């Protein structure tokens, strides 16, 4: 995959940036220019505003993959899931930081920023979201960095005069 092709999607893959329809309120991920649920869908054109997902969700279905997708060969067996977010969209992603046998439908998860795959030894490294388990009393994921990360890096603090 060319560098530009992956790079242009980084706001979505790194930060879970989606869109919200100003007409009906439907949230889409990845973002869309036309709302897929508005009855008069043409009226939504130009009214789709940026919207950030919280990164929380629940496992709706899952599988343990033994025959890997390209670039995922070193990760088998890995868990792939459909994750339903409270904002509405369902995302496809890996479930990590848990034994495959402990994943179940209904498991609460949170997005975490991880390396997805590498294009060989000298190629581009693809990063993006995966999901790790979240518990009621400990909403922070066990390891890794929580998503969403800030849309833009915060400005460095000024040195005090």
């Amino acid at each position: 995959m060319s560098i530009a092709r992956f790079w242009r999607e980084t706001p979505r893959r790194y930060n879970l940036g989606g869109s919200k329809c100003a007409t009906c309120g439907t949230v889409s991920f990845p973002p869309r220019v036309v709302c897929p649920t508005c009855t008069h869908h043409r009226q939504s054109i130009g009214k789709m505003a940026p919207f950030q997902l919280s990164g929380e969700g629940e496992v709706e279905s899952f599988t343990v993959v033994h025959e890997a997708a390209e670039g995922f060969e070193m990760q088998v067996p890995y868990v792939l899931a459909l994750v339903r977010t409270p904002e509405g969209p369902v995302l496809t992603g890996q479930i990590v930081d848990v034994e495959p046998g402990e994943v179940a439908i209904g498991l609460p998860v949170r997005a975490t920023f991880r390396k997805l795959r590498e294009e060989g030894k000298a190629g581009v490294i693809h990063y993006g979201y995966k999901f790790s388990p979240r518990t009621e009393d400990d909403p922070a994921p066990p390891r890794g960095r929580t998503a969403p990360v800030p849309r833009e890096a915060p400005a460095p603090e000024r040195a005090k005069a």
Partner: protein
Amino acid sequence: MRDVAVLGVGQTKFGELWDRSFREIGIEAGLQALVDAKLASENLGGLFLGNMASGGLLEQEHIAPLILDYAGLAGRHLPAVRIEGGGASGGLALHQGFLAVASGLYDYVVVGGAEKLTDVPDSTASQIVSSTADHEWEVVFGATLPSLWALVARRHMHLYGTTREQLAHVAVQAHEMGSKNPNAHFRNRVTVEQVLGAAPVAEPLGVFDCAPLSDGAAAVVLGPLEGARRHTDTPIQIRASEVACDTMALHHRRDVTANDATVAAARAAFSRARRSPKDVGVAEVHDGYSISALLAVEDLGFSEKGRAGPDFASGQFALGGRVSVNPSGGLKAQGRPFGAVGVAQVVELVRQLRGDAKERQAPATDLALAHDLGGTGATAVVHLLARAG
């Protein structure tokens, strides 16, 4: 719009055809169909060719004129068009051929489907197959086509109590029918225990839950129903040809345990033919994965939602059952040369309706259904066929 009939059929063996090239198998099926239809090539109006991925699989695009050329027809300067819709490419090509004849613009056309998956390593072929899902938002995150169908299977099991054993019956039945089909990729019978004990691909699906990567080609000749008896004693009318689409990614579906595109295409087809699912006696449905067959029979109206598992396990869809499903062996056993599948389904149904299916002949029926699907269900094609009265 005028009525359209299938006048001739042709098909190669499906399987690992290492000694045969793409152009050889493409021509073989087409010429068989022309001979079967007793059609002089000067009456041919054009070629519609279903193919999923010749570029990735063969480093050859622009294949419709290639096949036409090697069929000896380049000098006639006929129109030849390739049609792509993932796994539904063959069904889509048939729809285009149907439109061409129904409109009156063309009288006779050949609709072919051809794919060669074994000229590249299995891993390359599997990647190309997975690209019929949403590459940017599924495959980049670790999904393969079987893993997405595994997500469907797990959800279906969760909601409806479907079991691994019930899914296994789909493969057992497919191999049973494959054993009766000389063109089938797999002609061996398997047991439920063998299916359950096979290596996992994406749990809960194992090797026997997944259709193989096959080479193969199929073709039909279509023409106006009026005058069809000049070509065949048993013209088979296309009573409906319908296409419907849905979201590209599985995660955007209304309900991942249903293919709404199949529901929409089937509803439109039954409405156009003024028939209902109860009238169908024999059907070829998409069983790229065992779970796909369950969704198909539910979405086509042969099973109540959630009941397809028990219905398959109790033999309701075996040969001579409530509906004889996939007498050819389906994608699972007859084989899965992607672009050829939708055309091969109709070839089988024409043989069934003519009463030419020998060992795998379903009881006589006046309505047959073909169901072709792309990806995880972004494209569905439904054809209804019947013997012309």
